């Protein structure tokens, strides 16, 4: 990993207060403020430390299996007949998703800070699995908070975490999904702040998390950019990634932000349709507010209460989004769009049958939009889709939705 020294405007965020424009910041209880300050100081020092960088790069290469390939989805692109679609194969990472890039980085921070215990929130379970995995490898005690509803719909990942030695804590408060898991993780952190490192799974939360998670995930975009130049001799015309909290999207987008010719599309979960209100698309249909330590777009009612979300994919079922995405939306650098449950399921089947690649339901939202976008473009144009995770974890969900007993 290298720190981005590019002085251009898109890549010098956040400012010293952790703000991306008017978004971000540190909206947490006083008990956590000094822990955040300590984390920021350690991170700023280690991110310029050659030994730490070498350790991180080694783990990404030998434990995660990087670089991940850039794969041309030829048959699917031919079928659509528009732009050529390339998959950035984060599904081939160890543990099957992009999440592990970040957990490897944060676990190294925990190790350097001498914290023997790590906690994490998880929605689909991918971040929980990635955290439990790295905790097992480093011998750290690990507690994963997961909404009780998600524990049900992602039972395979729950068992994986247990096999890895983690304690999975079902959260029954509120809507019993990802946001409530994050509330509970914050409550644990505030109680055990002395010995505990909170490994946040996305580019949300209080500063410095949105910055450091982004920095760890930027390996996706740096590789993709170099691979496009090497394999295709040019930059892509468009990038597409799904956005829940937005870590896989920012990881892909960020290294391209100053490439003016590259269009970017963040795909939110449209659920039953934006017009129904049953969705998880704060950038498409929400408004700015404060939740989980940062100012960002939220799904909220007329009284500023956070509203329940709906998505077929547990990993996108979140009422907020990383603050950098809110900023990128407002300045118009990234287009935020949505794909609904039905379109995501269709894309899940399509890429499974046509490319032999079974995507996570989260990723399937990006694929659904990429299909729409590609059809409006020409074969000399290229789209890179972040194939952010593999779909094995979703097999039971898909079967259940289709009335099939497995």
């Amino acid at each position, binding site marked *: 990993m290298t720190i981005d020294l590019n002085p251009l405007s898109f890549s010098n965020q956040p400012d010293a207060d952790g703000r991306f424009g008017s978004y971000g910041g540190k909206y947490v209880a006083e*008990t*956590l403020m000094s822990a955040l300050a300590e984390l920021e100081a350690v991170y700023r020092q280690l991110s310029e430390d050659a030994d730490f960088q070498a350790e991180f790069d080694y783990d990404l290469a030998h434990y995660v299996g990087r670089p991940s390939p850039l794969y041309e989805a030829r048959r699917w692109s031919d079928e659509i007949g528009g732009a050529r679609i390339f998959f950035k194969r984060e599904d081939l990472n160890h543990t099957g998703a992009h999440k592990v890039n970040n957990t490897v980085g944060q676990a190294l921070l925990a190790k350097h800070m001498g914290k023997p215990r790590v906690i994490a929130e998880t929605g689909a379970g991918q971040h929980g699995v990635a955290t439990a995995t790295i905790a097992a490898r480093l011998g750290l005690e690990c507690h994963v908070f997961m909404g009780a509803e998600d524990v049900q719909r992602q039972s395979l990942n729950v068992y994986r975490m247990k096999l890895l030695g983690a304690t999975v804590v079902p959260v029954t408060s509120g809507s019993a999904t990802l946001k409530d898991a994050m509330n509970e993780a*914050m409550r644990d952190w505030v109680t055990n702040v002395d010995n505990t490192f909170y490994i946040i799974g996305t580019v949300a939360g209080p500063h410095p998390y949105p910055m450091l998670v982004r920095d760890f995930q930027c390996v996706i975009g740096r590789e993709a950019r170099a691979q496009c130049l090497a394999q295709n001799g040019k930059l892509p015309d468009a990038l597409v990634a799904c956005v829940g909290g937005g870590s896989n999207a920012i990881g892909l987008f960020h290294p391209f932000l100053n490439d003016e010719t590259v269009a970017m599309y963040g795909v939110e979960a449209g659920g039953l349709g934006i017009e129904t209100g049953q969705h998880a698309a704060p950038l498409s249909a929400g408004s700015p507010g404060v939740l989980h330590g940062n100012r960002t777009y939220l799904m909220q009612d007329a009284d500023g209460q956070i509203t329940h979300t709906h998505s077929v994919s547990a990993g996108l079922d979140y009422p907020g989004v990383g603050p950098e995405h809110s900023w990128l939306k407002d300045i118009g650098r990234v287009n935020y769009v949505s794909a609904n449950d039905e379109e995501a399921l269709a894309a899940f089947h399509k890429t499974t049958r046509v490319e032999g690649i079974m995507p996570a339901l989260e990723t399937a939202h990006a694929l659904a939009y990429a299909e729409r976008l590609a059809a409006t473009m020409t074969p000399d144009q290229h789209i890179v889709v972040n194939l952010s995770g593999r779909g094995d974890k979703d097999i039971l969900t898909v079967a259940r939705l289709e009335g099939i007993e497995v």
Partner: protein
Amino acid sequence: MSRIAACFTELKARGRKAVIPYIVAGDPGVELTVELMFTLVEAGADIIELGVPFSDPMSEGPVIQRGHERALERGMRLRGVLEVMTEFRKHNEHTPVLLMGYANPVEHMGHAQFADRAFASGVDALLTVDIPPEEVAGLNHELRRVGMDNIFLIAPTTPAARMDLIAKEASGFIYYVSLKGVTGAGNLDREAVARSVAEIRSHTSLPICVGFGIKDGPSAAAVAAVSDGVVIGSALVQRLADVAQAGGDDAAVLAAARDMLSDIREHVDGNVSSAA
């Protein structure tokens, strides 16, 4: 002088410590909240802390979380809390009331509109758990404009340098969070609280009240002895919820509130043996 400043001046003159009960507005009943506030005042409350229900109360333990959920189910929102305040002020001009809650409902209403409406309804101060001094400039500008106090938390993890920063933004009193954790957790270490309060005093001349972990008369008395006042939250919310859930009517809930607060008042005032 603000109601809160006047309250502490009066307490000091009488050699008393502040007793500050916390209830969640709308819990255990929307109609009951104003009556409950009157009862708490009659039983010895010097200041009332009124929780503003929020969908994601990140710093609350399970007891107060459930209080927020019950209040929200009954339709209590920030606007409703201000209506409760208007009603309360029709009959009580004296007792300071502070709202305790989370940033988003206030942010959503807008700082200026919140300040105007809260002040007009008789609210004296605001405590937003998730707005530290670093993020408070805009809100504090509006609160000061109308003359409302902003109460800040200081935690066991707060270093000395931050105490100065907090003291600069705070008014009314300082709320010392006596333990690491969420509301309703753990047990107090009186000596540690005494040391922390002494440290905070070297950074501010504001009164220092202590909350989190005060369960009953004896623990309230122990903490009051080394501070300027005590906040009783989870234990009271739990007691009222227990009575309501066991089928107790409004009168039973009010009686439980009166009993509990009177007992705490007596202990804090030193009218019972500390061995009790």
